[in-house]
């Protein structure tokens, strides 16, 4: 039945995995809050950047590791910016679903390109400097990358919350995400602010991509691309609005998933990967029980 001696290490590893969800989830939500677009290509862009990093580390002699990491962030930012500046404005008159479909198309294209450029069947990966250093908490082992992931997610949530509320440009971003046309009429420098939002999100994307390769243990571009799907679970629980709820929901999901593994209950642990989805669907249905919730053209504040 319940293997209590295992509960604690699984708790720690569950929290560590929750950090993965937290980073991806908050990254997605931040972009949504600042641009009104749910970027389904979030994972694919990060994977593309990570592939470039791997290539620079493994296939070139001249590139120092730190530069390769920077390259990941630069490439991710560039790709995100490309989409955000060139294509996203053309979808400005569509509902959030339509906007998301555009990013979905982008993800498919990126994934196809990555498969053509790199071999997915080889064992490929890299460890960040923080990945090889670890420490023990009460008999459980944690790498510094996992700590960085938690702190990073925390920083992003805290920083973005303050940014959106307290700064002028943050307010401008919220306005544009809400209604681009009216914001422009009101004198918000839409193009500039949008560019900043996409750029920031792109940087976020790159950093998350780097961390994910270390946290997953290998550069798995299929996993990284489609990981956006379970990552949406904490975002939906946060009703695509509340960054802190998203943050905490991510950890709850991570821990429950890990504990289901620890339980040795047999069949529930086989289905532990449904945890995120069950939570998300459950939460949404709960929120919708009394009223229709919908996302109109306006991203909620």
């Amino acid at each position, binding site marked *: 039945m319940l293997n209590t001696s295992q509960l604690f290490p699984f708790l720690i590893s569950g929290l560590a995995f929750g950090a993965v969800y937290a980073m991806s989830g908050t990254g997605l939500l931040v972009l949504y809050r600042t641009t009104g677009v*749910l970027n389904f290509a979030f994972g694919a862009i990060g994977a593309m950047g990570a592939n470039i990093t791997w290539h620079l580390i493994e296939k070139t002699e001249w590139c120092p590791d730190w530069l390769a990491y920077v390259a990941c962030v630069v490439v991710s930012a560039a790709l995100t910016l490309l989409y955000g500046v060139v*294509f996203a404005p*053309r*979808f400005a*008159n*569509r*509902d*959030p*679903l*339509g906007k*998301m*479909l*555009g990013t*979905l*198309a*982008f*993800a*498919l*294209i*990126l*994934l*196809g*390109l990555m*498969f*053509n450029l790199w071999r997915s069947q080889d064992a490929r990966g890299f460890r960040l400097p923080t990945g090889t250093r670890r420490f023990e908490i009460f008999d459980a082992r944690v790498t510094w990358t996992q700590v960085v992931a938690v702190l990073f997610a925390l920083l992003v949530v805290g920083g973005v919350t303050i940014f959106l509320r307290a700064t002028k440009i943050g307010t401008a971003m919220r306005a544009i995400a809400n209604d681009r*046309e009216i914001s422009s009429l009101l004198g918000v420098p839409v193009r500039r602010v949008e560019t900043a939002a996409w750029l920031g999100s792109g940087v976020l994307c790159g950093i998350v991509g780097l961390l994910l390769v270390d946290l997953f243990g290998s550069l798995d571009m299929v996993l990284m691309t*489609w990981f956006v*799907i*379970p990552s*949406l*679970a904490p975002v*939906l629980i946060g009703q*695509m609005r509340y960054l802190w709820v998203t943050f905490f929901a991510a950890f709850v999901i991570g821990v429950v998933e890990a504990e289901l593994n620890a339980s040795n209950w047999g069949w529930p642990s*086989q*289905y532990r*990967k*449904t945890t*995120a*989805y*069950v939570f*998300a*669907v459950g939460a*949404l*249905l709960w929120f*919708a*029980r009394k*009223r*229709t*919730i*919908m*996302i*109109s*053209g306006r991203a909620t504040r």
Partner: protein
Amino acid sequence: MTTVDAHSALAGEPVSTVPSRFGRRSITQAAIAAAVFLIAMFVLPALTSTFWVKNFTSAAILSIVAGATGLLYGRVGLVSLGQIALYGVGTWVTMRLGFATDWPYPVLVLIAGVITAVIGVLLGLPALRLQGLYLALVTLMAAAAFLVILADTKFPTGGPGFKGLVVEVTNSDSMRRPDVAETDFGFYRYVLVVAVIMFGLALAHLVSKPGRAWASIRHSEAAALATGVNTTTYKLWAWGLASFMTGIAGGLLAAHVRSPSTFTFGVEQNIILMAVVVMGGVATLWGGVVAGLLVAVLPELLQKWGFSSEWSLILFGTGLFANLLITSWQLDKAGIKE
């Protein structure tokens, strides 16, 4: 702002969406459809090899799923990113019953369709209050959960118990085909007939009361409610119909491949399906046919021309993208905002 309905503009059709039943236009359409059907049925197989006939069979089966998805999206305004999971349910039920009983194949497929329809309605029920992006994401999540379960359950191979899996792999069995359609060519024609029946069923809905109700719901749910349309019933009906069609398609797949594999039902397949459905066009049921051809035939052609299979991903992404760009431009021109 014009009075053109946004979705209609997307679909590229004028506002009044429901055609009259027996006008001259619909007779022409019927004639064209009949011609296409006859050519596909009798001319096409004679001109090509077993290899391509199998691919066209896949295309026909997938066109049913795509047609159902397109109907939900284009006609009722309901986005389902989870049809592949229901497709898998249809396949699974058909196989389980096929091994457990001696019932004739059409009965198996029909039961699979009904069970899938029930599941679809049950899932549609709580989702009634969700719209747009939320609905899309919920269907995606639900599908992902289903597919985790499917990866564990796998497809029956003739064994006992609920899962129906055999212990010794070498003893595993494969799905039988109907007696009238044992061969690949025969089964191709069988599938074509079933596809036509399914599209006919969908069309019958579209030209009658449900179709009108759906059109008004898609236009504006609030307005529909105001005019006395029972939106709940009709939305559930739409889920039911689409799930039924998808379940039937799943049953056809079971006999087509005979030993389905869980790899055919990945979460990404839902995404690809949506991409080709949009590319094929959600305005008409023909879009489903185009989508089916895209997803079943295009990758094979690419391989034939020396491109790796990954290129189909790039093409689907680009096609979806192009489609979205064009429709966005149209919306812009019409001065519409969704």
